[in-house]
């Protein structure tokens, strides 16, 4: 995760000028002043860590809700990356919702079946079919909310057609 150096050393990334010491914090480097760095770091996290990062403070929460981070998460390892998906996914509820409601359960379900192990779920290439299936399920879920509500269901809970994905398997 992110380490905040408190001993006065500057954290120096490549190709970046060292920043002047921020006021009010004494010596030390605060990542909160370098949000682009923060975002770069967050981009490389897995889903669980990203969720945890969102709980650190209000600022991080706001940043972690940035949909492009979740887009990265969803399709980082997809080969080849899908084209033209963004407007559709955004319209259907965004990448964060896609991840919570479809991608994470689909991957974990398929992973468990294939290897039966508890390894890192996202660090694998997932193929075109899995992408398509997740997107289809996501669209069906959106439609169901239309049928039922008229409005959107609050929060991250999916509508009934995807409940089968969320039930624990041999926990």
């Amino acid at each position: 995760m992110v380490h905040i150096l408190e001993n006065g050393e500057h954290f120096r990334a490549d190709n970046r000028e060292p920043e002047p010491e921020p006021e009010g914090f004494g010596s030390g480097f605060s990542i909160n002043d370098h949000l682009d760095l923060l975002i770069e770091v967050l981009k490389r996290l897995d889903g669980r860590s990203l969720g945890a990062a969102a709980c650190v403070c209000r600022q991080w929460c706001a940043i972690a809700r940035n949909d492009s981070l979740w887009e990265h998460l969803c399709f980082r390892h997809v080969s080849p990356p899908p084209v033209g998906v963004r407007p559709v996914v955004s319209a259907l509820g965004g990448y964060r919702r896609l991840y919570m409601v479809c991608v994470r359960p689909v991957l974990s379900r398929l992973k468990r079946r294939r290897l039966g192990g508890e390894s890192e779920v996202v660090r694998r290439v997932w193929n075109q079919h899995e992408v398509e299936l997740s997107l289809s399920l996501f669209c069906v879920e959106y439609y169901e909310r239309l049928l039922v509500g008229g409005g959107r269901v609050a929060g991250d809970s999916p509508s009934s057609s995807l409940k089968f994905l969320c039930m624990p398997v041999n926990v």
Partner: protein
Amino acid sequence: MKRGRERKKETQTTSSSPPAKPKDLTQTLPDSGGMDELLEVLGYKVKSTDMADVAQKLEQLEMVMGEDGVSQLADTVHYNPSDLSGWYQSMLSEINNTGSDGVSSSVDFDITLPGDASTTMIDFSNNNVTNGQQTSNMYDDDPYDLRAIAGGAIYGISSTDESLEDRNGIKRMKSAGSDEIIDVPPESPRPVVLVDSQEAGIRLVHTLMACAEAVQQNNMKLADALVKHVGILVASQAGAMAKVARYFASALAQRIYKIYPRESLEDLHMHFYESCPYLKFAHFTANQAILEAFAGATRVHVIDFSLNQGMQWPALMQALALRNGGPPAFRLTGIGPPQPDNTDALQQVGWKLAQLADTIGVEFEFRGFVANSLADIDAGMLDIRPTDEEVVAVNSVFELHRLLSRPGAVDKVLNSMKDMKPKIVTIVEQESSHNDTVFLNRFNEALHYYSTMFDSLESSALTQSNTLDLEMSEVYLGRQICNVVACEGTDRVERHETLTQWRTRMNSAGFSPVHLGSNAFKQASMLLALFAGGDGYRVEENDGCLMLGWHTRPLIATSAWQPGSVVET
């Protein structure tokens, strides 16, 4: 009430689980457990190992009394009230005997002493298991002879002797007037156990099939007795088999009493969609075929023979939205039955689909047609545009089989399908033969089919916290069962036929098969892998068609067709 009694039974059993000091019994039974202490205080001698049996008999008694009335018991002679088991036995035997108009006394039963009882039953069991015809031979003699239920077979060696032989054995002993014999419990000196549920399940199936045979032979009195017996048997069972049996028994009863059920109104389609993968499989595989057929088209038209809630189309629209080159203009024609409350359900679905289309950026047009039967629609009504302008797909999920109830209807529809000039026709149907001319064949096929279906539902029950969908799906399937078993003529619309039969029909109507590709297979397999109970589901490829089944039994089949006969290419 039943549940309460069961709980009572359980608590009593647990309270007596440390074996009481064995009393000195007049009957020296090698395996006797202690007497139940609580009941003993009240003056009843009931072995704790008997408790379950006694409770079961209590239930049966209630069941039987409920039907025939308490007055029947007025003549019953009770012997030794402290022998609870024996008392219930005698009551039950009385009721059964009076119920059969006292004919049984003239029927010749083998007197069996407890020691021999087991042997007799085992022999009977072997006979019955190996030769299925045994049953029908038995009851040809006497219409009221309930041995047709193959009592011994399935009661087996567990000495819960509900078989008529033993009951009448008691009766014989009773008339002999000797009290000592009566005190010998009808149970053999082996430990009393509850009937093994697998055996009970077999018993249930045999009884159902015997009842169907009776109906087939128009022997309604016997069928009636058997159907009531199924009711008793089912009461002590739980699980998928019991549920299926209940539906079949109820359907048989309706057929016997000629109470034909009316077409039910509430739409349970969505519940079935949620609780199990069959509809999802159907939609995904059909969509894949349609998507491939629509490759390169700029305007497309889908004709859906049974729109319901339109759950199939969001996924197709999303796939079209994301395809290379952008989405085509998507036109949907949905056909559905008239609604009882005269609301325009089709338009509402169309409106929601339009909202979705707008969200994902697909040009959308919808038209709904209300029709009692597909045969009422012809291609001219549907505004078919020229083939070079618009590519047409026809989709039918669980709808074509209904046409078989009227002669000529299915041919008419297949012809008008050709007039629609589709590039592809996708058909999903149940994979079973429920349209045989012989009732008994239909019954047997349906029993196997729906047992498998309910089994698969049962497994997905383990992973669902919301049981409403599951229960409603069972009702949904139950309605189909009722239609297959109880209805006839134009009312019987659930005329399922196998893929082979449909292939023949499509070929002779002038369609040639389109193979569903490997993409469809992969997607279907992946979809099933997502279902937690999914170990049992199997996707099979059958000569270009895809079948979804539970373990080894295929249950639904998706096939794709195009106009143009196989001969001419």
